[in-house]
């Protein structure tokens, strides 16, 4: 079985802080990591490899330094790594990103594509299903368990209020939840090896894609502005009886549109 895992290198957003004076993001010194849901997907693919002898290729799109994330995946046990990197791919929204990645997947070939459900820097959960649409494949998102059967996979698909068990024939695309497993560590030999291995870097010339459909130009959406929520002003403290206190809280929640 040919498995391709799509991964994104992301800043560890739990480490991000807001400058209390300027209200802007402090980006310096934020470590880059493999996006957690993607890492769950990678571990699921490697577990299938252990079990059935699959070939696991990791694919990422990003700047040249994203090769670090791919080397980590190689050190964990992936067989091959491809980095899609080209200025022409920059500024892409999820539509253009998924179009670019789909083109690379066509070139790579696959039986099973595994993406993370969503990336922690964007939280959109859109790229996986959009890749599947561009490739005309069935997809199942929010996957928390995965097993392979003959020519198909059976997965647990999670909802807010329960789950479905779904069987889907290969080829198909799954989006994985980080909770589905505990990713293995890189092995020492794997780390040494990973730095000797070649990471293929593909640019615009290496994939078949319409230039009108990629990068900023191919993106239907634009960021009009971005802003931080600003520095918090000091709160108010009330010394009141329980009933009045409850009323004050409910009013505040209404103002916040919580209720």
């Amino acid at each position, binding site marked *: 079985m040919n498995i391709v895992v799509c991964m994104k290198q992301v800043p560890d957003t739990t480490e991000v802080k807001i400058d209390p004076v300027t209200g802007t993001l402090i980006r310096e010194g934020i470590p880059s990591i493999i996006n957690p849901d993607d890492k769950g997907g990678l571990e699921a693919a490697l577990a299938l490899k252990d079990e059935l002898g699959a070939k696991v290729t990791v694919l990422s799109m990003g700047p040249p330094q994203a090769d670090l994330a791919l080397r980590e995946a190689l050190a964990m046990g992936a067989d091959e790594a491809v980095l899609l990197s080209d200025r022409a791919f920059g500024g892409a929204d999820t539509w253009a990103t998924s179009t670019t990645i789909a083109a690379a997947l066509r070139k790579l070939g696959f039986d099973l594509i595994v993406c993370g459900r969503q990336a922690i820097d964007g939280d959109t959960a859109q790229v996986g299903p959009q890749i599947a649409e561009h490739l005309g494949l069935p997809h199942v998102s929010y996957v928390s368990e995965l097993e392979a059967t003959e020519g198909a996979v059976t997965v647990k698909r999670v*909802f807010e209020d329960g789950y479905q068990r779904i069987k889907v024939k290969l080829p198909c695309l799954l989006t994985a939840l980080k909770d589905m497993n505990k990713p293995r560590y890189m092995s020492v030999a794997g780390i040494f090896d990973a730095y000797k291995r070649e990471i293929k870097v593909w640019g615009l010339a290496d994939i078949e894609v319409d230039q009108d459909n990629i990068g900023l130009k191919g993106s239907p959406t*634009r960021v009009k502005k971005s802003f931080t*929520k600003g520095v918090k002003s000091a709160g108010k403290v009330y010394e009141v009886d*329980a009933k009045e206190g409850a009323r004050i809280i409910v009013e505040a929640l209404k103002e916040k549109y919580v209720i």
Partner: protein
Amino acid sequence: MNISDYKGVMVFAEQRRGTVQKIAYELLGVGRRIADTLEEPLLALLVGHGLPDSAAAELIAQGADTVVVVDDPALEVYMTEPYAKAMTAAIERYKPGIVFTGATTIGRDLAPRVSARVRTGLTADCTGLEIEDGTRNLLMTRPAFGGNIMATIVCPEHRPQMSTVRPGVMRRLERDDSRKGSVEKLAVKIEAKDKNVEILEVVVEKAAKKNIEEANVLISGGRGLGNLDNFNKLQGIADELGGLVSASRAVVDAGWVGQDRQVGQTGKTVRPDVYFACGISGMIQHVAGMEDSDFIVAINKNSAAPIFEYADVGIVADINKLVPALVEELKAAKAAR
């Protein structure tokens, strides 16, 4: 694509097991406001099988001008491709300028698939939606970068402008049975090949177990509650707000609740939209795990408790008297809606 051909707002009226979900009414609430600003109609798209007439009537009472019903046996249980086909057909038929879907585990599966198919933009998990003066484009505002920044997104040259909308943020309209609207059936042929996955089992759980790190609302209890019985009463607030109960280390050490609920340095770091600190003094080890919450409510009988320095709203009162009062007040607020 001729943008001026696209008019109106369409909301996806998500239903599960024949029950229209709360998010559908929230989408109608924001959809009505946007449609009125544009002076265009508001459509609700109801996809399923054998849904009662009362479902469409309720959507009209809560703001829809037209309810578009797609009915097919293959649409009884949510499955991506048949639903994507139904929604795409509705977009092609009605050409709405805007389409809202809930940012639920169904909406976030369906909307990207459809947006890729109709070649338009999709903005995820929006918490703010406005019409821009002049251009009449939709301004879609959403949190990004782990909630650290907000971004406003536009989709100027493609239609429809699609977004998924975070549940619990938009206000629904007051229901009005005198509101008039129409119900139209849209025939969509779902073929055997569209059912491209096989659902082996459907399991409904009362509430899927959620992680406190993912909750939008946390009701956190501390030693000030006095005993386990009082701590358990926090669940009443959590139920009303759709949140989860979490705890300080003292409470976990006392064995009132498991460690998976612990907030703080040695527990979990949380960043919910609303954090209640109930009978928690606010030692630095606790604060480190929750200070980035969007909105903090603190209740403590000691007015000198450090937690008040972090609170947006602080109430100096006996927490065990306040909990029942708050549950009652929340119920009343809901009933008044």
